[in-house]
């Protein structure tokens, strides 16, 4: 789990003084949204295609299907054979990849600016014409299982986090791990992918974000040419599956071979998309900054350097989620300290936030970091596109990014205290603990000369 300061990363800027240009938004007749942002510092462009689908759109039995489909998107269409997409991008000097999250699936290429048409030609082709082949699927789903072993099965902290999310949410689809349960991967069928593709991969469920040394009107013409002819789909939103009110603390223990214990805690909170009171998500963002907005923030100052009960501790909150989510805390106890004592220390920090207003110094620091963060962020055209895509796939207008600094600056100490009192409460809390089992296995290495030991 990340324990960085999300709000600083998400800050954004559009100061006319700066090299970064305005954002232009267009809608094609088939419902495809195109968002273009100029940045003329270098002759490069990033092209991102965001689909409004991810693990939170899934249901039991087909978990992981969005992510497996992301892998299969590189396996060819009628016009381009398996792997050809990547070869063409590479020959054009591009770098590319894709990523799947709970709320979105995104594909991107980074290119020298004259190569944008190559991206649009290939992306528009695979938006509607993907060829899902049984043999390719049989191989690729094994790759995804290896990815699951790498990311989750053999990572005790990831396993703990997966169990934590599945415990915190009962009905909400945020309980579903993006990579999918192993058993669902083992039982996945090509037909599952085909249905998922047909349902979600359509121009009216896609947002194309382009940032770089480009002319917006030319990008629009290019988009019309390539994406314009694609047929839209009738979209049926997934059932809302709103989480029932939690009525008491939930706990789960994960006992697997490991060396170091770990604890993660989460409180049910609203996000921008779901908040009834519009300043609350911003107050929660500031709250995360008070706890974990750098090395001078409370968790490192008090728990890592002060009482030294924790080897590391973090807090995070993502206001840009599509559904109500969690305010997260996690920690690794220092040597000779227990998970119980580090959990107690985290709770004391929260109690303090509930009983005393945060200081003006802390608010000033967060304000300074937010203002600086929006400048630093412009050093990466990729990240500028990321913010737009994340907002849009969360069902929020990209323009919210322009309000961010103002909204953070407007948060008062009383509001921070108010959200701490309202949401950081026992009845909305879930705690997961990693309780290490012995690592077993003989740890002494077996050294052999050539020819001995392992297969050649």
């Amino acid at each position, binding site marked *: 789990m990340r324990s960085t300061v999300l709000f600083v990363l998400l800050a954004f800027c559009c100061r006319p003084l*700066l090299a970064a240009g305005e954002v232009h938004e267009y809608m094609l007749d088939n419902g495809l949204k195109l968002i273009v942002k100029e940045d003329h510092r270098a002759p*490069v462009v990033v092209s991102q295609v965001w689909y409004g689908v991810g693990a939170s759109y899934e249901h039991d039995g087909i978990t992981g299907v969005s992510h497996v489909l992301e892998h299969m998107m590189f396996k060819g269409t009628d016009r381009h054979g398996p792997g050809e997409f990547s070869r*063409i991008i*590479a020959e054009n000097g591009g770098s590319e990849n894709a990523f799947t999250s709970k709320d979105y699936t995104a594909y991107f290429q980074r290119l020298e600016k004259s190569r944008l048409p190559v991206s649009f030609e290939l992306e528009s082709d695979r938006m509607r014409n993907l060829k899902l082949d049984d043999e390719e699927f049989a191989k690729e789903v094994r790759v995804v299982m290896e990815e699951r072993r790498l990311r989750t099965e053999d990572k005790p902290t990831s396993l703990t986090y997966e169990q934590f999310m599945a415990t915190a949410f009962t009905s909400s689809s945020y309980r579903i791990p993006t990579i999918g349960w192993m058993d669902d991967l083992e039982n996945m069928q090509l037909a599952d992918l085909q249905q998922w593709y047909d349902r979600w991969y359509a121009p009216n469920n896609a947002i194309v974000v382009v940032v770089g040394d480009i002319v917006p009107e030319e990008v629009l013409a290019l988009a019309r040419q390539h994406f314009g002819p694609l047929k839209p789909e009738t979209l049926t939103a997934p059932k809302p599956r709103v989480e029932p009110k939690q009525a008491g603390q939930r706990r789960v223990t994960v006992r697997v071979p490991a*060396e170091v214990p770990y604890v993660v805690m989460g409180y049910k909170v609203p996000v921008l998309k779901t908040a009834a009171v519009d300043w609350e998500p911003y107050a929660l963002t500031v709250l995360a900054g008070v706890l974990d907005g750098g090395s001078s923030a409370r968790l*490192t100052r008090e728990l890592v350097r002060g009482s030294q009960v924790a080897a590391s501790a973090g807090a995070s909150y993502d206001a840009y989620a599509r559904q109500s989510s969690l305010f997260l805390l996690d920690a690794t106890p220092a040597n000779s300290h227990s998970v119980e004592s580090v959990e107690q220390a985290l709770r004391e920090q929260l109690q303090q936030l509930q009983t005393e207003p945060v200081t003006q110094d802390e608010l000033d620091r967060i304000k300074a970091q937010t203002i*600086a963060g929006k400048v630093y962020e412009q050093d990466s055209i990729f990240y500028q596109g990321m913010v737009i895509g994340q907002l849009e796939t969360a069902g929020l207008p990209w323009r919210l990014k322009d309000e961010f600094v103002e909204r953070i600056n407007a948060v008062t100490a009383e509001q921070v205290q108010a959200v701490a009192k309202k949401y950081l409460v026992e009845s909305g809390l879930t705690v997961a603990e990693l309780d290490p089992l012995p690592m*077993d*296995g003989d740890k002494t290495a077996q050294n052999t000369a050539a020819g001995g030991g392992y297969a050649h």
Partner: protein
Amino acid sequence: MRTSALLRSLPALAGMAACWLAGPAAVQAMPAIQHWQTDNGARVYYVPAPELPMADVRVVFDAGSARDASQPGLANITNHLLDQGAAGLSANDIAGTLEGLGAELETGALRDMAWVSLRSLSSDRHLDPAVEVMGKVLGQPDFNRPDFERERERALVSLRRSEQQPSKVADYRFYAAVYGEHPYATRPIGNADSLQAMGVKDLRAFHRRYYVARNAVIAIVGDIDRKAAEQLAAGLAGRLPEGERASPVPPVTALTVAVDEFVPRPSTQTHVRMGAPGMHRGDPDYFPLYVGNHILGGGGLVSRLFREVREDRGLSYSVNSSFSPMAQNGPYTFSLQTRNDQTAEALKVLRETLKDFHDKGPTGDELVAAKKNITGGFPLRIDSNSKIVEYLAMIGFYGLPLDYLETFNDRVMAVTREQIRDAYQRRVPLQQMATVIVGGEPAP
């Protein structure tokens, strides 16, 4: 097939306005690197970047773990303690001042380099106080005993945690197997015994010896003019004694036999690292080896290894090979991970793919495609201040020519198939490789 695919995308190009036809790999104006030395011998590399009101300052010392001598972890923890107390300021003071300005300070150390990086808004009222703190951190760290003991405890937790991650175990075991008695063999973070035996006097002595102006490279990129950059560099270097440059890291001796090591772990997957000492920065074989490896296992989603191991057989999520050029020959590393019972098969494919490339070199088509990818993608390498400041530090640290970036594409284009094959024959010893395997027992 590649050619026809490209052709199919051409009609799209033809339909566009003329500006889209800027031609292949349009030449980008290189950032003109300015270079000078401070009065006390720190080497400065500077590129103005007035587009954004921010500045990046990266100070790099020849003070990585290659300088640990008999105390593994000393370089790393010395670097780590720099911002935990300096010139009487506490860790809270240092972090509080910087973060209150919106500045970001980062420290780090690997085998060759130890660094301190600052990112700040470039207006005087932000940059000046941030650089003031950075200077104290570089030149006047306090190395207070309680801070040291706390950070040592945290390092011990990190060491223990890395034992539950098979990839981390594979990485450090691999370096140990490849480098034997060479200083590159040990982990930058050290080991429990050496950390326990260390004291603040060791850190102070290390800092005195290596954090000196003649052992420093200062890289600056941002919205500050030359005069301000000169003052900034002189101010930072002025915090350091002149001192002496570190002596060269001893050369690496090649492996004489193959080394195979199996480290059992209770994991569902087995992690494989295979390789040998590779090449150094400024190596005469750099470009043939770099381009060759791009084709074999470096080129992202289109390398031979990616195709053979992942696309054709579904054996591994990530599979790649990479050279890590260092002051002396850094490792050439092949890496993959697969379900325990598939290890033998994956290793066989890996070895056969390498052997075939080693024997025959790349095909003409592969070489053309690799050159197009590397040179066509060149603008992406330098499209942000953060990337440029890292290049400056690297160029300065390893003494590469100032026109390194400018001539990069030409040198890639000049590489031939025969040069790649020849370089692999001479530099990649198939019979003397270290293979480290970490994971569950293979099925009988």
